[in-house]
């Protein structure tokens, strides 16, 4: 779409992010004022919305566009006994409040038990609501996930949730742009999760501050949509406002035919427009970063921020070797919290739990990858393994493929959909001192339960760790006896 009614759109090569931004300008801000940006899709969940609806009620304002708003329950929902009332009173209150607000204002809501319920960032794409060239917001920082489609998608605070509900717009200053180019071929066993963990370790947990990251290069183009979502999901862990990937045929094929995907002539119009979105030749970014895909290996975090990561084949770093005094102090604190000794090979670190889930890695491909490693193998003694699908639909899909049987035969718990142990707002929490290999996105102190220790990993590493009991990649596992082997992921 050209945006003829708004002046001030530059006539020069533009980046993907600039194009999407420009096409959503309602008012171009003058003299340091922010732009007013139109929001195409507003995702809502129970944690960050109650105070926003409260605000609307207080001012007597309606929801401006119910047809651009959708809500689901995810952060507080139990993953067991979902037919029983939620035991935790405050969790129940938050969910009941969302139900009341949705009914009162007329917002479409997918409640616990509904086939479309699940983590908000899994639900949008699977319904076909997330598509290229749109703006997506949600009161949740991992809204960056939707950028995988070439959408401008970012997390907002509760005041902004209220603002979008009331006006369908947001006053914002344009973000800076950073190109992150990953060229080459990923080795077998190296996944999107490893790539993004390596990027965050390289640029730091604040390296993306103020930027929209655009992931590009041959290694990114070869990723599936689900892998791209994993990458964009964790853009926020580099401090970025959003992550984006130029839409291509892989994107269009993923969107096509989904419930809310455009149909007929609308589809043709959409694809024609979407093809104009990739960054122009000669477009200038505010910053650029390069990575060689051929050099990447499975990655793991050792500390308490997502930038504190190394290759799994490496050892726990020595703080004294870190030049920056702030970073060194942070590393010392982190190692103390994580109870790790510098120089220890990460593969010698034993875990108590494995969490397979979260909006980073809980889609069907993630579950398939996890299952492909554990199938025919035995779980390490004493390791608690939990598999939590991202949505009720993913759960059904996995069951149709028989993955649930692979999980339960292995001794893993097969749960109902939700955020679960990603942040432990429901009963799924680590006990103090417990160590977990987790496919989620944050390893902050206490994130998965007070005193819990988190190592962020890919689904393949999570699975191999569940087999060996120490942090491991599939290449560390003994081969499966021939008769039990199905599909091998790793040579």
């Amino acid at each position, binding site marked *: 779409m050209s945006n003829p*009614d708004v002046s001030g759109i530059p006539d020069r090569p533009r980046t993907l992010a600039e194009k999407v931004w420009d096409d959503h300008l*309602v*008012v171009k801000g003058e003299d*340091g004022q*922010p732009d*007013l940006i*139109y929001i*195409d*899709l507003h995702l809502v969940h129970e*944690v*960050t919305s*109650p*105070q926003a609806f409260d605000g609307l009620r207080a*001012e007597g*304002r309606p929801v401006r566009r*119910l*047809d*651009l708003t959708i809500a689901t329950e995810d952060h*507080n929902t139990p993953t067991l006994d979902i037919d029983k009332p939620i035991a*935790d009173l*405050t969790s129940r209150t*938050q969910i009941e*409040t969302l139900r009341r607000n949705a009914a009162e204002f007329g917002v*479409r809501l997918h409640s616990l038990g509904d086939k479309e319920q699940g983590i908000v960032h899994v639900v949008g794409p699977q319904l076909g*609501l997330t598509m290229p060239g*749109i703006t997506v917001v949600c009161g949740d*920082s991992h809204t960056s996930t939707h950028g995988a489609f070439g959408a401008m998608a970012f*997390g907002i*605070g*509760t*005041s*902004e949730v*209220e*603002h979008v509900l*009331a*006006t369908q*717009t947001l*006053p914002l200053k344009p973000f800076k742009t950073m190109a992150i180019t990953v060229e080459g071929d990923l080795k077998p066993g190296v996944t999107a999760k490893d790539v993004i963990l390596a990027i965050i370790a390289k640029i730091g*947990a*604040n390296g993306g*501050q103020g930027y929209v990251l655009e992931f590009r290069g041959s290694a990114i183009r070869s990723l599936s949509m689900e892998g791209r979502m994993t990458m964009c999901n964790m853009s926020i862990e580099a*401090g970025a*406002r959003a992550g984006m990937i130029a839409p291509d045929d892989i994107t269009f094929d993923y969107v096509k035919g989904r419930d*809310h995907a*455009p149909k007929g002539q*609308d*589809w043709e*119009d*959409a694809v024609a427009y979407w093809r104009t979105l990739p960054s122009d030749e000669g477009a200038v970014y505010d910053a650029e970063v390069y990575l060689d895909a051929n050099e990447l290996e499975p990655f793991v975090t050792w500390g308490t*921020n997502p930038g504190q990561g190394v290759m799994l084949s490496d050892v726990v770093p020595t703080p004294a070797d870190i030049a920056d005094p*702030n970073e060194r*102090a942070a590393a010392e604190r982190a190692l103390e919290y994580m109870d790790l000794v510098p120089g220890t090979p990460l593969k010698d670190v034993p875990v108590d739990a494995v969490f397979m889930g979260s909006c980073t890695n809980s889609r069907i491909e993630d579950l398939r990858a996890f299952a492909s490693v554990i199938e025919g193998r035995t779980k390490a003694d004493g390791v608690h393994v939990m598999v939590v699908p991202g949505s009720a639909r993913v759960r059904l899909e996995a069951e149709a493929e028989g993955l649930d049987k692979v999980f339960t035969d292995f001794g893993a718990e097969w749960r109902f959909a939700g955020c679960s142990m990603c942040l*432990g*707002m429901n009963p799924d929490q680590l006990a103090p001192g417990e160590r977990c290999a987790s496919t989620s996105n*944050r390893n*902050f*102190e*206490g*994130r998965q339960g*007070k005193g819990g220790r988190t190592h962020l990993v890919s689904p393949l590493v999570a699975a191999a760790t569940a087999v060996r009991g120490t942090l491991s990649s599939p290449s560390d596992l003994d081969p499966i006896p021939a008769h039990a082997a199905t599909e091998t992921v790793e040579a």
Partner: protein
Amino acid sequence: MEKFTTHTGIAAPLKRSAVDTDQIIPAVYLKRVTKTGFEDALFANWRQDPAFVLNQPAYQGASVLVAGPDFGTGSSREHAVWALRDFGFHVVLSSRFADIFRGNAGKQGLVAGVVSESDIEAIWAAIEAEPGISMTVDLQALRATIGDIEVAFDIDDYTRWRLLEGLDDIGLTLRDEEKISQFEARREAWRPRTLPVP
């Protein structure tokens, strides 16, 4: 929103870097559905330690928090700002803030002022020389004074203007209602709809 011009209150030093939102307010407190009453949740884990700075008698009633770099990283939870505000803070100073946190702060009348790292060190030294000392933060002049130290701080112009005027965001935007309707009239049919089109 109340207008913010100048604030004077006890300054508390938080000598840690990268204070993330899980530390400011642990996730368990996000279950509440009200917009106030989060004072008990602020730094809940750290406050269990009697030695934690906000537990010390000198800093009771503190309203200016002077923190290390990268304050407010992590999640978008606005509760982090509510908790600071409900606890009694009007101002947070740091050499660097996470973007979402800074945006949220401005919307709730909490001044998130950027001060150079060396000035933060100087302020910490001044506080430690006289625990419980007051600080004055002048949003009009963009200066903060403590004892005989005066430092400049930074906040983006738009947020400053809105804080000084006490302006509500939604009301401001709705002044452009006509332009929003015009934009909606030219949106393409392929864009997503969550409900069947009537």
